[in-house]
């Protein structure tokens, strides 16, 4: 078997035409998923059973099922219900892009919520006690002490999850979207050269992972600046 470099040179620019879509899927889902994660987290730590229970169930379901299955349920399953087709969400759910963003956001929300909760549990209890002894309210303690420290503690795991999300965007190609993966599959169908095409695609994803990790590494160093012993 021979390796056709000209095919690599040809296909990379074509696949990069899907980069915009991949980035859109990732960025939108990251933002929406993180907002959802914060809501789920606040419900989870509220100590009110009627908020805790839905949050725990939601997280359990979305972490316990494959994201591909979630995408298919949303894309193929939901339109079968008339209520969905009549709802204001139909313009979004009718489009594969809307379905992909929805599935990725719902999934990211579940994972990131647990990551943030881990950050909160990692904050030294003594700090909250010191703040309480100074007269700060529960809310003030949460905003001024717990949150900034929890964000630092959660950043490495959060960064891993965003990398996962970026890679999961490739699943959008299964519901007709022409992201980088979707374009790659089209090229393979025309050229019958899966090896060259998918290997090139893998390299592109790897470069993206590299930059995401770099960016978060910077953010983490910024958040940890107060841990450096020397000035």
């Amino acid at each position, binding site marked *: 078997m021979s390796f056709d470099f000209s095919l690599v040179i040809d296909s990379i620019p074509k696949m990069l035409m899907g980069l915009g879509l991949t980035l859109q899927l990732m960025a939108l889902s990251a933002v929406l998923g993180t907002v959802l994660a914060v809501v789920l987290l606040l419900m989870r730590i509220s100590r009110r059973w009627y908020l805790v229970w839905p949050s725990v169930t939601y997280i359990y379901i979305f972490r316990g099922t494959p994201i591909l299955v979630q995408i298919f349920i949303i894309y193929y399953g939901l339109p079968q219900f008339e209520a969905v087709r009549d709802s204001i969400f139909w313009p979004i759910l009718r489009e594969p892009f809307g379905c992909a963003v929805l599935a990725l956001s719902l999934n990211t929300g579940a994972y990131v919520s647990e990551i943030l909760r881990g950050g909160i549990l990692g904050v*030294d209890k*003594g*700090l909250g*006690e*010191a*703040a*309480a*002894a*100074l*007269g*700060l*309210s529960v809310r*003030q303690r949460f905003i*001024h*002490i717990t949150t*900034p*420290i929890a964000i*630092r503690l959660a950043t490495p795991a959060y960064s891993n999850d965003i990398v996962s999300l970026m890679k999961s965007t490739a699943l959008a190609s299964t519901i007709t979207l022409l992201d980088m993966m979707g374009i790659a599959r089209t090229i393979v169908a025309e050229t019958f050269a899966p090896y060259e095409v998918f290997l090139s695609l893998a390299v592109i994803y790897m470069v993206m992972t590299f930059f995401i990790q770099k960016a978060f590494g910077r953010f983490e160093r910024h958040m940890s600046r*107060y*841990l*450096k*012993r*020397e*000035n």
Partner: protein
Amino acid sequence: MAQDEKQPVIVLQNVDKHFGSFQALKNINLVVNKGERLVVCGPSGSGKSTMIRCINRLEEHDGGKIIVNGHELTGNTKDIDAVRREVGMVFQSFNLFPHLTVVKNLMLAPRLVRNTSKAEAHDIAMALLERVKIPEQANKYPVQLSGGQQQRVAIARALCMNPEIMLFDEPTSALDPEMISEVLDVMVDLAKEGMTMICVTHEMGFARSVADKIVFMDAGEIVETGPPATFFDNPKSERTKKFLSQIIQH
């Protein structure tokens, strides 16, 4: 400082506290008058921390009555908030906010709890850093300070709220020996200024020279109470004698 008219500011009456089925405090009775300095000692696990943490409601007692500066501690958040504003606390492990500079550690509570202006909070903070003799560390982060310096910042942070009562829970136990005196010096100064203080400590030199009254606890009970001279030289209970002999050996 002996006062003619004694004004009780901390009163514990028949206080009990359980952790599950374990009873950490058993029928504690204690009165601290304004300006009095109390030292609490006793073996590890005897309930010293639990007792002083009940005074500012970091722990909730489940029997008896606690009245601090006229506020009885029940479930009522107004009373708890009032007590916490009027009572400062210093912990064994410093508990400085690691993400804030020293001066911001001091400014946080006045800004949030008392709505003090930024400029005024800064002035108060700097004045207190002068008082604990580390104004030059104002813009460092806690991790960049030695243990003794961190504990002095923690004392200054509590003083920023202008408390009438100070609670110290083994403030020197986590320190290297050479740093203990710099923290004790600050506490001695506070005592001289007439601050009402409860100090859990095993620094017997400090207890002897500063305390008006020493309380010895064992197994959740107050076993013996007395002025330092009587307590050290003529302890009544066998448990106190045994404890003192262990302390003085090292």
